[in-house]
C-alpha cells in the first residue's frame, strides 16, 4: 500500500475497509472491529461481537442455581471470584438469605484480590499492546502469586468456582490469612515499579494521552461503568453508592480521572490497585475465625451446601447435602431483583426472576464489557489505526463476558 502511494503523485488515498479481528491478537479475545480507513485515519469503527456466545443465560435458566456457579466463571474469566460471588449474592437477595459476618469479610478479600489480578493482567496486556514488553513479565509474575492464593482457597487457579449461595465453597486453610498479609504487604512494589516504567515515560504518554477520549456526559449516556466512567471524572463506584458486604466500613478512595482518555484510564486502574490492597489489609484485621462461616439456624441450612469434611462424618450434614444438591433453595415465583457489584471491569449486574422452583425463571447478566465496548465507535472516531489497539486495551474488555 505504501509503495503504491509513493508512486502516485497526488498521494490521495482511497477509503478502505479493514477487518480487525476476530483473530487479531491485541483485541483481547474474539472481538471483530470493522474499520473504515482513509490512509491511517479511522473514519468509522463498527464492533462486531458474539463470536463467543455460548448461551450462558439460557443454560442458567435450565440448571439449578447451585449449578449455574461454574458457568459464571467462564464469563469474565479474568476475575471469576467476582462473578460467582456476585451471582451468589444476587441469589441470596432473591431468596432473602443472610450470610455471616466472617463470610462477608472473606468475600471482600476474595473480590479485591480478583480486582488486583484482573487489573494486573490489564496492565500487562495494555503495555504489551503499545510495545512496552517488560511490564508484561513484572505484572504476570505478580499475578501468579495471587493465583497461588486462589489455589490455596479453592484448589483451582483460573476458574475457581469458589463462591457458593449462602457462603463459600470451603473455609480457608489454616494460616492463609498470614500468606495473604505477606502478599499484600509487598504487592505495591510491582505496581510502583510499573508506575516508574510507564507513568512519566515519553512514549507511553504519547501513545495514551488524548487518545480514545470520551466526555463525561457521553460516557453516562453510553452507560459506561467502572474505570472508563471514572476516568471521565464521574465519581461513581457501586461499592460507595450502594454498599454491599460492608464496604461502607472500609476506608478507601475512588480514584477519578479528568480527561477521559486512555492515559486517565491507566491512572485510575493503577490507583484502584493500591486501594484494593488497602481494603484487603483492613479486611484481614476484621477476619475472626471464631465466627462461623455459615449461619447455623435450621432454615438457613436448607440453602447452602454444608462443608465437605462434615458431610462425610455427620449424619445431619449428609442429609442437608442431599437435599440441597437435589433440590436447593426455592426462588419465589414472579419476584424479581436486580443486584449489581463493582466488578473489575465495571458494573456487573444480575437480573433474576424467581420461578417457584430451584431454577431461575430468568437470569440476565449485565456485562460491563459488553456495554463498555458499545462506546468504541465514539472513542475511535478520527483516531489513527495504531490508536485502536491502545483504546481497546484501555477499555479492558473480556469477550467471554461480553458475549456470554
Amino acid at each position: 500500500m505504501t509503495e503504491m502511494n509513493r508512486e502516485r503523485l497526488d498521494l490521495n488515498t482511497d477509503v478502505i475497509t479493514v477487518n480487525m479481528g476476530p483473530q487479531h491478537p491485541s483485541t483481547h479475545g474474539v472481538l471483530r472491529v470493522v474499520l473504515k480507513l482513509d490512509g491511517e485515519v479511522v473514519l468509522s469503527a463498527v464492533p462486531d461481537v458474539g463470536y463467543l456466545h455460548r448461551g450462558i443465560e439460557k443454560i442458567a435458566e435450565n440448571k439449578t442455581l447451585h449449578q449455574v456457579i461454574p458457568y459464571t466463571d467462564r464469563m469474565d474469566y479474568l476475575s471469576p471470584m467476582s462473578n460467582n460471588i456476585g451471582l451468589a449474592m444476587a441469589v441470596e437477595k432473591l431468596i432473602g438469605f443472610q450470610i455471616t459476618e466472617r463470610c462477608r469479610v472473606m468475600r471482600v478479600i476474595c473480590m479485591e484480590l480478583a480486582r488486583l489480578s484482573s487489573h494486573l493482567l490489564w496492565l500487562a496486556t495494555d503495555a504489551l499492546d503499545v510495545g512496552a514488553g517488560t511490564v508484561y513479565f513484572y505484572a504476570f509474575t505478580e499475578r501468579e502469586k495471587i493465583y497461588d492464593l486462589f489455589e490455596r482457597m479453592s484448589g483451582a487457579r483460573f476458574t475457581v468456582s469458589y463462591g457458593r449461595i449462602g457462603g463459600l465453597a470451603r473455609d480457608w486453610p489454616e494460616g492463609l490469612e498470614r500468606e495473604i498479609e505477606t502478599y499484600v504487604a509487598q504487592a505495591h512494589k510491582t505496581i510502583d515499579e510499573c508506575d516508574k516504567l510507564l507513568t512519566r515515560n515519553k512514549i507511553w504518554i504519547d501513545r495514551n494521552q488524548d487518545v480514545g477520549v470520551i466526555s463525561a456526559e457521553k460516557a453516562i449516556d453510553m452507560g459506561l461503568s467502572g474505570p472508563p466512567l471514572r476516568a471521565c471524572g464521574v465519581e461513581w463506584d457501586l461499592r460507595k453508592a450502594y454498599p454491599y458486604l460492608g464496604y461502607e466500613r472500609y476506608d478507601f478512595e475512588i480514584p477519578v480521572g479528568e480527561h477521559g482518555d486512555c492515559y486517565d484510564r491507566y491512572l485510575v486502574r493503577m490507583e484502584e490497585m493500591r486501594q484494593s490492597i488497602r481494603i484487603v489489609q483492613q479486611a484481614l484485621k476484621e477476619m475472626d475465625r471464631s465466627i462461623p462461616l455459615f449461619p447455623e439456624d435450621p432454615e438457613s441450612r436448607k440453602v447452602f451446601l454444608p462443608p465437605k469434611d462434615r458431610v462425610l462424618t455427620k449424619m445431619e450434614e449428609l442429609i442437608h447435602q442431599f437435599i440441597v444438591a437435589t433440590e436447593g433453595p426455592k426462588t419465589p415465583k414472579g419476584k424479581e431483583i436486580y443486584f449489581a457489584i463493582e466488578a473489575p471491569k465495571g458494573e456487573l449486574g444480575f437480573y433474576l426472576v424467581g420461578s417457584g422452583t430451584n431454577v431461575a425463571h430468568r437470569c440476565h447478566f449485565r456485562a460491563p464489557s459488553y456495554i463498555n465496548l458499545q462506546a468504541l465507535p465514539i472513542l475511535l472516531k478520527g483516531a489513527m489505526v495504531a490508536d485502536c489497539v491502545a483504546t481497546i486495551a484501555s477499555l479492558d474488555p473480556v469477550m467471554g463476558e461480553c458475549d456470554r
Partner: protein
Amino acid sequence: MADVIQAIQSKFPGAILEIVEYQGERTLVVRPGRVKAVLGHLKQIEGFNFLADVSSAHWPEEGRIDVVYIVRSLKSREQLRVRTPLPIEDPTVETVSDLWGTADWLEREVYDLMGVQFTGHADLRRIMLPEDFEGHPLRKEYPMEGDDEWRNYVPPENRE
C-alpha cells in the same frame, strides 16, 4: 421516590398498572403504549440519567413477554425498574435508544434472543447470533439442545 411516582401518575393517568416492591426495590409496571413517555419523563424531568440495563422475561402461560428497564440517577443514587408487559403475538415497543445511547446494543440483544421488536431503532439487527439464525433462544419454548425443536421442552415444575 414517592413524589416521582406521584408525578408520573398525574402526568400520565392510567399508565402505571401496578407498583411492586420487593427486597427494597421498586418496579413500576407500565402500559406498553406509555412506556416511552414515562421513561422520557424519568430521564428529562426526574434526572434518571443512567440506563443500567434492559432485559426481558418470557411468560408462556400468561402469554406475555416483559421488557424491563433499570434506570438510575447518578446524582441522587435512586434506582427504579420499569417493566412493561407485551403480548406474545405482537411483542412490539418503542425504542429508547434515542434517550440513552446504552439502549442501542441492549435492545438489539433483547431483539436477538427474545424476539421483541423495537420500533424506531436505527439498527435493529441480531448481535449475538448470526444473521441467518432462526428463532429466539431465550423464549421458553426454544429447546436446550437438538434439532427436534419445541418438543423437548419440559417446564421446571414438571421435571423429575
